[in-house]
């Protein structure tokens, strides 16, 4: 029974989710990550700093008894840090080794992006950040950058 249902559900997810993105803003840039990777979104979590950690790591947070590393996406994406007074938002994402929290400026909607609007980053763009960006969706009125989550979280202490 389980054998029969498997391909069906895989097909389902292909239709429904493959192009569905959770979006967020970092320094005015508009980013998307596959909605299936997002576990939850929290507003201004309490964060404990980790001495000697790389600056990208904002610290550790307590997610209902689980300890989660929080990554400052502003630093990760090489955009100016700071803007005091604005509480960051934590997007808790699933990775192969547990969940990680991404600290972003603002959370956006969940979008369905048409596959034909997708484009890889132009070769000529040789930004340091380009290696953590999978590509761009050309949406109405704006561009959505698709974050390569696994590469973005490759941070060595």
């Amino acid at each position, binding site marked *: 029974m389980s054998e029969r249902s498997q391909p069906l559900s895989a097909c389902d997810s292909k239709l429904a989710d493959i192009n569905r993105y959770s979006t967020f803003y970092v320094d005015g840039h508009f980013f998307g990550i596959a909605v299936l990777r997002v576990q939850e979104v929290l507003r201004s979590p*309490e964060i*404990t*700093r*980790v*001495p*000697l*950690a*790389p*600056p*990208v*790591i904002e*610290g*550790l*947070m*307590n997610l209902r*008894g*689980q*300890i*989660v*590393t929080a*990554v400052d996406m502003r*630093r990760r994406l*090489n955009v100016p*840090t700071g803007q005091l007074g604005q509480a960051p938002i934590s997007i808790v994402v699933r990775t192969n*080794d*547990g969940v*990680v929290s991404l600290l972003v400026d603002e959370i956006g909607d969940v979008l369905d992006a048409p596959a034909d609007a997708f484009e890889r980053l132009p070769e000529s763009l*040789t930004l*340091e950040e380009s290696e953590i960006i999978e590509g761009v969706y050309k949406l109405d009125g704006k561009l959505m950058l698709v974050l390569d989550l696994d590469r973005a*979280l490759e*941070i*060595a*202490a």
Partner: protein
Amino acid sequence: MDDQEIINEFLIESNENLSRLEQEIVDLEKHPDDALLLGSIFRTIHSIKGACGFLGFGNLESVTHLAENILSQLRTGEKQLTAELISLVLESTDAIKNELSSIEKTSQESGETYEDLRQRLSAASVKGTSDGSLAATVEITETVRLEAVEAETKAASAPAQAQLQSATTTAPPSEAIMSVPVQEALLTSPGEDADKITANKAGPIADSTIRVDVGHLDKVMNLVGELVLARNQILQYTTQQDDPMLNATAQRLNLITSQLQEDVMKARMQPIGVVWNKLPRVVRDLASSCGKQIRLEMDGAETELDKSIIEAIKDPLTHIIRNCCDHGIEAPAERTRRGKAATGTLTLRAYHEGGKVNIEIADDGGGIDVNRVKRKALDRGLMNPEQIAKLSDREAVNLVFLPGFSTAEQVTSISGRGVGMDVVKTNIEKIGGVVDMSSTTGHGTTIKIKIPLTLAIIPGLIIESGGEQFVIPQASLRELLRLENNPGSGQIEMVYGTPVYRRRGKLLPIVSLRDILKLPASGEDSEVLNIVILQSDEQLFGLIVDSIRDTQEIVVKPLGNQLKGLRPFAGATIMGDGSVALILDVVGLGQIANVVADSPLKTRHDADEREDAYEDQQTYLLFRSGAHARVAVPISIVARLEEFSRKSVQQSNGSLVVQYRDEILDLVCLSELLDGQPSVHEEQNDSLPVIVFSEANRHVGLIVDQILDIHSETLRISKEGRRAGISGHAVIDGEITEFLDLAAVLQLAGTAWAPHLAPSKQPVLLLDDNGFSRGLVRNYLELAGHPVLEAQDTNDALQKIARKLPKAIVLTGKLRSQLHAGLTRILAEQKGAESLPLILLCERKDEIPEYSEAASEIWLERFDRDGLIRSLLHLEKTTSVPTDRDAGSSKVAA
């Protein structure tokens, strides 16, 4: 239940029975008259046979059937128990094990028919007495036999157990009459009283135990961990409340939680005997194959440990036992010659002590020959003679834990292949344990293993520093110290810049947690110093903290992958108020603070992460000079090799020179420099081998005795042999080789190597995660007269920059691009450092970008030394970067 499920049930049950079976068979050898034991063995074999028949495993059935025949003959007294028969039965259990594992993997038998074993089994069951000399009469008193039969019919119900026990108490008379001489090995447990044996064979009582999946237990354990945290939170909250009802309930919750935690932990606990059960068989087999007589004594088999730890020590323990049997205990003849009993004793002892479990493995064998160990370490190139001379006997004995070490003169099939003891050590250290060995020549060796009881929940001391809370595991805590800041009383003093404290007459190194972790100072300095005295391995040090809170049971949670590399932290936990606190790793802290000496006995595994040894793929020129039989210098910094005749060398102004390519070449005699005297060899030979180093337009020649070889290898270079002119040593081709510190040598020689254009005293910051390549580049830079600061990561670099602004940053190594990204970001934020010139050294030409947008970046090839030096000089002369470059290999940003 389908077939597979039945087979799985069968496998689980049979495997469980088998491990008991072996123990029982070996026990039977020393108590051949023990009918209950025999009965139990018979039953086990019988039930395996039955299941095999039912499930259609024909080969297995026929082997077990034959084994059962023999056992049944033993029971009825038709046959006498001999060592030969025991071996045969053990061999059958091996066959059963083999088949079971095949069934587990493929759901089928292996196809092996065990023809030979079956023939021997049937022959043995036909033959009468097999061997007169080994014969031992097995008589079973009528009462015992009756009881045994009764026990069998009643399965293993509790009342039968009780009867069994009473039955054995009647057995001793028969035991006293009959003793069995077994030549190969005598295995006895120390408490040989009947009660103990009964306890041993009282099998699991089917009705009162159930099997639980370990994964499920783990889940429960995690939940209890969460509960402990929630309890801590509630307790913290209630202390601020006045509600008596709430307080009482909270207290109850507290109690229940503690009890629950303890009981769940207990559910995961297993007696160490689970592992030990297999050892008598191992020892017996080893003893007979080496022709030794070994008695195994076990004490404390009931000592309980967490299941995960039991799993982890299984292999190391077996390995140590094998080693003891093979190398430790001598052959009987040798023992008699030394005036010891022919039978060697191997003692296993386990006991709880201070929240840890100690396991001792002691043999009364020949002990470890310290000199042989030292010689071996030298032969294998694991240490150099100086280091070895400094070792105490105890340290020398522990050299056997070094990788690539084996003292057995003869490599046997049992042990001595050079793998093992180092793995034993790493495995034990992995679970937070410590292993130590002591030995007295002629009297034996003792190995002590200390392991934690459990890994999940530990007591910890909460401290505060720089406004953050940290947890120190109680296990490494020794004392708390409070120093009032008034002169006269005990104070912190300085020894060579290191703060120390006189603690009961002994100097204790002191470090500040705030300094190690680079935490911000928290307001005004208080009048009181709080010092936590910690133990790391065998060494003590004091840690200054801002304040000391209380102790708590904490749940250890691992850090995410992004933070795994941070040495000062062992994990994190959640505090009563829901905040996260980091758990300090005392060993890591000590190493960072340099208060814990890096012992030479550390395994290579440890050394990987430390700075006193580094690794790099390099090509080296090997040469000999005076007392230094093998010296190496990286070929990348050698310009040429030359030979000059002795006559052509002239003295000029007190130094040696030679005419070379229409120039005067300064010569430095290396042996004179390092040893203080020209080597003897020099006088006998007319030609002088010279290594020429050059930089820009300057050259210097180094006179050596003989050029030996060129060698390309990835080496581990240890900085331990460091002294003037020698930067460290490593093993090349099995020989200890010293590494030349060229900059130091040339400085010692006082040659005219003074740079043409004196560079400013402003340092160059060298950023590279690899210590060795950093050392190489440092060499070039210092040769050219640039002071060098080294940093291994961007944080480190940032601190160095903050302390002293360098004139440029040089980035090298594999992580260059990663470091680069981090660095540019950091620099942009750092005041005064935004426009620091960056020089990037690439591994290959094609990594150099055609165009770089940052104006202050220079890309060079890794070995373009001249380019590097020139770029630095240019940077000093002009703030702008030169655009025309003669070296085609480098590109400069416009």
